[in-house]
């Protein structure tokens, strides 16, 4: 187990480092001059050169990279080009709670809708409920989130004034209901399909039959013998989605005017704000890798066979 842990940790660092390097290089490859962006279109060439020097952009790429990595080692993400005097860290720190709340909300919708639908469908295959659930899933999977988001805003917020129209406020949860739903609907549909297939499979396995022959009540069989097997794919999906959402969900954030990581990343790219670009990429990749790792660890708790393998 410990050897597995060490190997896994090393892997995580390698991945994050690789992604960071890639982000750094990309930020320089894209056409456009960050110094000119900061100085503004009317600035004189001297002013631009001045700013370039100030930002350290006149140094060789390798030197800049070394500085960048050094700073990173100290937990310093640098100072934003575009938002002068603001550290990248503080900007991200301000945006993160919104994205985090939105991400958790989205996953909650996925879980709350997807899992029960999947289980009920599996227990009653081809029933009316199953058909309805299949149809809804198709709808959920094929609806573009921006369209769904706009529809929800138009009807529930604008026409009926049930929900706030835009932005964030108090209590935050109230402002996040529609956005998180928009974010989670596709995943919910996907979850319900996966859970249905998994549960359907489990229900056909000999140990479920044996549990029935033991005289165990259906509710106990579901709780103890069925759900545990569906847990693997569920945990995997939750982990992946959380990791992905936490890196920022641009479309949902911009439709609903939520000042999260997604918007921050988007703005930093359009202004060639190199430190902010690398900073947001770092956040996204760290979350992704971290969630991946957590899922992997959870496997060992769910399935003793995985544990056995890792111990050897």
């Amino acid at each position, binding site marked *: 187990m410990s050897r597995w842990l060490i190997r896994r940790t090393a892997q995580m660092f390698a991945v994050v480092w690789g992604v960071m390097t890639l982000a750094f290089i990309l930020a320089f490859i894209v056409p456009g001059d960050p110094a000119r962006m900061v100085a503004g279109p009317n600035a004189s060439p001297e002013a631009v050169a001045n700013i370039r020097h100030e930002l350290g952009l006149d140094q060789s790429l390798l030197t800049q990279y070394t500085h960048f990595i050094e700073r990173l080692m100290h937990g310093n993400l640098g100072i934003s080009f575009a938002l002068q005097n603001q550290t990248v860290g503080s900007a991200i720190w301000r945006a993160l709670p919104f994205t985090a709340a939105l991400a958790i909300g989205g996953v909650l919708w996925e879980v709350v809708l997807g899992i029960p639908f999947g289980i009920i469908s599996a227990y009653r295959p081809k029933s009316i409920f199953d058909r309805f659930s299949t149809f809804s899933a198709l709808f959920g999977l094929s609806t573009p989130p921006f369209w769904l988001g706009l529809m929800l805003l138009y009807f529930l917020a604008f026409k009926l004034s049930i929900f706030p129209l835009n932005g964030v406020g108090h209590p935050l949860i109230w402002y996040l209901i529609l956005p998180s739903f928009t974010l989670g609907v596709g995943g919910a549909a996907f979850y319900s399909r996966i859970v249905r297939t998994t549960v359907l499979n489990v229900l056909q*396995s*000999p*140990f479920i*039959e*044996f*549990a*029935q*022959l*033991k*005289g*165990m*009540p259906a509710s*106990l069989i579901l709780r*103890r*013998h069925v759900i*545990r*097997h569906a847990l693997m794919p569920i945990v995997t999906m939750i982990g992946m989605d959380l990791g992905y959402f936490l890196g920022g969900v641009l479309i949902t954030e911009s439709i609903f005017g939520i000042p999260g990581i997604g918007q921050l990343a988007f703005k930093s790219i359009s202004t060639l704000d190199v430190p902010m670009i690398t900073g947001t990429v770092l956040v996204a990749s760290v979350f992704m890798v971290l969630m991946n790792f957590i899922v992997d660890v959870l496997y060992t708790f*769910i*399935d*003793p*066979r995985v544990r*056995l393998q890792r111990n050897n």
Partner: protein
Amino acid sequence: MKLDSTVNRIPTVVRVNSVSVGFPNRDGMDEVVHSISFSIDVAERVGLVGESGSGKSLTSRAIMQLVPKPGQITSGTVLLEERNISDSESKIDWRGSEIAIISQDPLTSLNPLVKIGVQISEMLIHHKGMQKSEARIESINLLKSVGLPNPKRTMNQYPNSLSGGMRQRVAIAIAISCKPKLLIADEPTTALDVTIQSQVLDLIESISTENQTAVLLISHDLAVVANFCSRIIVMYDGRIVETGPVNEILNFPKHPYTQALIASVPDLFDTSRERLQTIPGSPPIAGRINLGCSFAPRCTHASDICLTHIPKLEVSSDADQEVACHNPLKRVSS
């Protein structure tokens, strides 16, 4: 004191009355088990033999009132002692506790994600209303009684860390946890290697003797049944073709199929090196409508009536032996 004729008779545990099992098809039902009747006495050990596909497992599952989907019990009743358990209104509190089953495949019948301890103690908690701690102690005792070397450790293990033989012992411990009146063992040893096979059978035998548990042993292996059981039921194509005491059946089979079955077993009684006889022809396709005796096409004694009328299971001249054949074999003393 009661003085009627039943006073000396051993009471019956389970009585199966004209039970049929079918699978739905496009235009109705494929019946694969046809109106089977038999009964098992208290502490009796009965062997159920027959070719693969003859309906042995389905019969046993019909007793449990749980045939694999989409199969259905299409008619008949099952009585547990005096109680009709095939009545849809009756409570299913007997399943697992009064009639228990060990299935064909011990390797897959335990849930790989649930600790052995939980899989056994859930029986005691559910059926006997025990507390967790009480059930745990009892579970350890059960695991000990089926011969697991380290029951405390086994409680916290998962099926994958046990060998096939150990897993079958666990399955047996689960099945006997509530001291059932009837234990159905559906080919309990086919998945195990030979040395373990006899150990498992010995275990079932000792349990049956100790707890007065009746056993219905389903097996391909006539030799096993001969050693283990006092009575044999021979099935062919979803019907009982012959039943009676082990010695009678094996020494003086009346049904040509039984005779052929015995002849196909190597070294059941003698050790002569005669060529093994195989039964000519192939088993019929289950579910096909049959006019006459379904063994007739393969039978060397078949006459015209065999092709037109299905023989009924009838008591033959010798008490206790019943046979379903138009031309039963004569008893030849050697």
